[in-house]
């Protein structure tokens, strides 16, 4: 069946002003942290070119700052500086080589910023501090508004000179324009405050300036926030009205949409797997019914069937697929060719994309080791046909096997369990983490496509490995739980893996110890609460599950934890565990380390999310072998899944 047969709408062309897109899939704007010294880089060009080569219909780049007062994070593109134009040209040439149009997003983040990098007062419509940056902005004067408007025009001209096919005004989740539009942040009493036409005045002025700069031959879009999800903020009715005002100018070619405010309700902009796919399509739907322009819908759309459905149901004309194409640049091409099951589906785990951004690192992907490395070539393949043995079927082993097999080697993977997946399978057994399983499902499918021989239920021994006469061995044997020093061999002090892998089923009053600060403790606590246990999470840290913040899971976890009655206690170090007499339970001695006070906590079970030990016995047993032995992931040092995948890929391509 042809692509149009499989997808009635997804692969149909669409006119967007002066531009025709060949399909409805949009690689919408998102931060990458690839800029250096305010300038676009070769990595930008390679990154976008990979998605263009993969068949996306339209690319909209990350934001380009329109004014020196706007510098909220280090690696922002300073679009206001003419030195960006050669870098723009490098990007657009690379994308146009694949016959894909590319737009640039223009933005001034307004009050959603600090002066740390710019050393200038932050500009905003009113002196209302942003809840995350917490810096009181300078309420802009009229001549400064004119300067802002002129800045958009200047950057639009730079973009035109740099070869972009259009520009998009980010008026949505982190923007001085959003600040003007929102009654929560615009308290002005002049012509730019008060009723909506006044608050929208700056949008109209920017549209005029930008259209004049780019002329009629390039597209102009406006991205609007459908609901800020903050007290007193903009809601859908006003967003629709703004769209009408924008469309009435006759100078705009499409409307893009978003939800939330990047600093107050970020967890709803880049939602993790706990938020249903397509959750923000209602915004595009409402705007599409109000304006005669193409509308882009967004909201954790991660496979082509979801995208097709969004179009078929009339929610939108174009579909933003960002993380789906970060994970797999060939998302569109695979869907079009009828190989949708070959797509390395995004997990919405947010660990290496959103999470790395928040840590000022470059954009990556937990399951695509090439994301963020597109500009760096892989080592040249060795002569194909080498005999490779991979031991361990978790994400590291599967990735190593897939990479080696893809480069033409003969690969056999041994997994001692009945199924591949390793600890990922256990982690994903918690309902709220189910999509995490996709990382091993995708990798297993790749192994099968590339001809890896997968032997499950087989414990690889040194004798077996040597007898196979391999050229190279990759060990991905994982990690094993180790009880904390204070456990004292108590049978009811157990590891989260004992619970998640079904070996034990604690009941009654359960304490979960969070030494890792991530999903291990929180998701196990949820599972136990769902099983009617009374659950308390205890951590020595200042916050339970502290790293849930960087993946935007903190808010939703806490809402669920509250609903499930999960208690959280911080600043407590476990000093000892003792049998609790006749009940068979445990008495914990806890030290409140800020004050030095000790207390006892009696419970029925203690479940520990704590550091594991590397399962590296085979590594030691194979030492001195004639073939190369590499090890990846937890058997090297127990960490998170991204390390296993990255190291597996390195080992696989290094064969």
């Amino acid at each position, binding site marked *: 069946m042809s692509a149009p047969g499989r997808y009635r709408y997804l692969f149909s062309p669409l006119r967007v002003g002066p531009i025709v897109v060949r399909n409805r899939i949009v690689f919408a704007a998102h931060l990458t942290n690839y800029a250096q010294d305010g300038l676009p880089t070769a990595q930008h060009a390679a990154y976008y070119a990979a998605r263009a080569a993969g068949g996306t219909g339209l690319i909209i780049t990350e934001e380009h700052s329109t004014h020196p007062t706007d510098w909220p994070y280090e690696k922002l593109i300073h679009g206001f500086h003419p030195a960006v134009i050669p870098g723009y040209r490098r990007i657009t040439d690379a994308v146009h080589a694949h016959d894909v149009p590319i737009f640039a997003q223009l933005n001034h983040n307004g009050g959603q910023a600090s*002066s740390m990098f710019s050393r200038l007062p932050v500009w905003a419509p009113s002196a209302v*501090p942003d809840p995350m940056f*917490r*810096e009181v902005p*300078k309420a802009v004067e009229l001549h400064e508004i004119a300067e802002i408007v002129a800045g958009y025009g200047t950057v639009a001209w730079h973009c035109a000179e740099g070869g972009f096919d259009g520009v998009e005004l980010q008026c949505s989740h982190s923007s001085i324009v959003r600040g003007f539009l929102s009654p929560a942040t615009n308290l002005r009493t002049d012509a730019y405050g008060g009723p909506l036409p006044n608050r929208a005045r700056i949008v109209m002025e920017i549209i005029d300036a930008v259209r004049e700069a780019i002329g009629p031959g390039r597209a102009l879009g406006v991205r609007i926030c459908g609901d800020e999800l903050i007290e007193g903020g903009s809601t859908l009715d006003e967003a629709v009205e703004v769209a009408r005002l924008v469309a009435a100018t006759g100078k705009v070619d499409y409307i893009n949409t978003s939800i939330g405010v990047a600093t107050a309700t970020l967890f709803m902009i880049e939602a993790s797997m706990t938020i249903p796919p397509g959750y923000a399509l209602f915004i595009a739907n409402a705007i599409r019914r109000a304006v005669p322009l193409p509308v882009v819908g967004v909201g954790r759309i991660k496979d082509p069937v979801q995208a097709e459905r969004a179009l078929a149901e009339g929610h939108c004309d174009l579909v933003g697929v960002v993380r789906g194409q970060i994970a797999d640049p060939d998302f569109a091409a695979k869907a079009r060719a009828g190989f949708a099951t070959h797509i390395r589906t995004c997990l919405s785990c947010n660990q290496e994309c959103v999470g790395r951004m928040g840590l000022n690192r470059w954009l990556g992907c937990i399951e695509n080791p090439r994301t963020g490395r597109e500009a760096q070539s892989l080592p040249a393949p060795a002569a194909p046909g080498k005999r490779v043995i991979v031991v361990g079927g978790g994400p590291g082993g599967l990735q190593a096997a897939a990479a080696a097999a893809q480069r033409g080697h003969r690969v056999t993977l041994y997994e001692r369990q009945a199924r591949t997946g390793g600890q990922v399978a256990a982690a994903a057994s918690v309902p709220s983490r189910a999509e995490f399983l996709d990382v091993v499902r995708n990798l297993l499918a790749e192994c099968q496509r590339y001809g890896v021989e997968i032997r499950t239920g087989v414990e690889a021994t040194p004798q077996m490995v040597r007898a196979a006469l391999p050229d190279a061995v990759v060990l991905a044997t994982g990690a094993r739980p180790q009880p904390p020093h204070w456990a004292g061999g108590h049978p009811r002090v157990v590891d989260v893996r004992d619970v998640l892998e079904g070996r034990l089923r604690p009941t009654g009053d359960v304490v979960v110890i969070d030494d890792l600060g991530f999903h291990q403790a929180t998701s196990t606590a949820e599972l136990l609460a769902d099983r009617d246990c009374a659950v308390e999470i205890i951590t020595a840290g200042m916050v339970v599950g502290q790293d849930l913040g960087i993946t935007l899971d903190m808010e939703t976890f806490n809402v669920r934890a509250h609903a499930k009655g999960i208690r959280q206690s911080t600043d407590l170090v476990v000093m000892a565990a003792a049998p609790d007499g006749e009940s068979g339970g445990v008495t914990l001695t806890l030290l409140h380390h800020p004050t030095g006070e000790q207390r006892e906590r009696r419970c029925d079970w203690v479940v520990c999310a704590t550091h594991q030990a590397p399962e590296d016995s085979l590594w030691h047993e194979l030492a001195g072998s004639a073939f190369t032995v590499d090890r990846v992931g937890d058997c090297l040092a127990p960490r998170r899944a991204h390390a296993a995948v990255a190291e597996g890929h390195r080992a696989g391509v290094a064969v």
Partner: protein
Amino acid sequence: MYDPVGGPVGVGVAELLAAVGWATSIVTQDQVAGTQLARTGDLADANTRLLRASVTRELRSLLREVGAGHAVLEDRWTGEQRTVDCALAVHCGHRLPDEALYLSRPGTPRAGDCVAPRTVHEAVLEGRRVAMAVGAGPGRPVMAAGQSVLAGRI
């Protein structure tokens, strides 16, 4: 102490009140008190000092109401409200610029909190810029027009 900023002032005043014998709580929307102290290295120490001084940390909470002898707090994420005893509420939030003099003659060079209330760092920085611009001709000394962040600055 209602401290939506999370800077040194809220924590410092809470410590001060506790030291003179007031039963003190610090109310913040954050999961720890004084989050902005992280960049100074004082975050953990500040929270330890608060706990040792018996300051109650009302975390991830919004101050919704102050009445006779009580205050109403709301969990930031769940919306659950609770009432706590309160004889005195101290607001330690963001301030507004005193622009009266500036607005009487717009365009007059200005620096520091009357531009936008921030820290002493910005006041010193902008004060120096204003001084350096004296006699340098017309312009806005806080940010010279056309000056690029890439070109460096004073």
